[in-house]
């Protein structure tokens, strides 16, 4: 089809919160009969690892609501103001925040990143891993899921030159 719309995404961040949008948008684009490519570079590259260990860091996201995924409705809607002194210094704080966010997502019926990633592949979304970042951070092809392509800036731009939507995330 000559009029197929194309989506081009650069995924440059690998935390739990930043990891969602590329997979949500690419899978939905494919479900809307568009072509989609995600180019994973810098900190986005770990999103292609077989096991995703993405975390969220409240300390670096000052506007992030801190809410509890349990208790009654009033308790769950409370926003916990965490002082920087605690979010920066308490060991395991990011792990706790990550656990709470994952639990909240699960309760609200949001897919996991892994589920969205496999839906993307099922729908034919292409994943391109940045070869340069692999060299710099020491990733091997075997570290990644099957079906990943490898390339650099020119590989992405060749596709993106004809894209209707281009996003840097």
């Amino acid at each position, binding site marked *: 089809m000559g009029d197929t719309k194309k989506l081009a995404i650069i995924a440059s961040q690998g935390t739990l919160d930043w990891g969602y949008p590329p997979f*949500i948008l690419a899978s*939905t684009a494919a*479900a*809307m*009969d568009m072509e989609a490519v995600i180019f994973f570079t810098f900190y986005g590259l770990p999103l292609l690892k077989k096991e995703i260990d993405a975390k969220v860091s409240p300390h670096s996201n000052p506007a992030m609501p801190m809410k509890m995924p349990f208790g009654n409705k009033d308790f769950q809607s409370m926003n916990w103001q965490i002082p920087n002194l605690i979010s920066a210094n308490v060991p395991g704080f990011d792990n706790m925040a990550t656990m709470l966010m994952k639990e909240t997502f699960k309760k*609200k019926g949001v897919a996991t990143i892994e589920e969205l990633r496999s839906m993307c592949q099922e*729908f034919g979304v292409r994943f391109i891993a940045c070869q340069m970042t692999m060299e710099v951070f020491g990733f091997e092809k075997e570290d990644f899921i099957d079906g990943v392509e490898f390339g650099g800036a020119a590989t992405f731009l060749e596709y993106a030159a004809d894209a209707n939507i281009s996003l840097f995330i």
Partner: protein
Amino acid sequence: MSEIAAKLELNCEGLNCPLPILKTKKAIDSLNSGEILKMTATDPGSVNDMASWANRTGNELVGHTEVGNVHTFYIKKK
């Protein structure tokens, strides 16, 4: 709207964006042209999203009802 005869039913209740859309896409792919999919969802965002999805893919939204917090969509495959 209950008189619309659906070939396939899909329950997306409790699921949030973008899962109802992704599951609808998979279900519609399994149907033949002209057949109807009945999808139910509780995600309030699915109302606008289903309309956009149908508009973009060319599948026709032939019915939508809301009972309580449950939305029922009837989609005719193009």
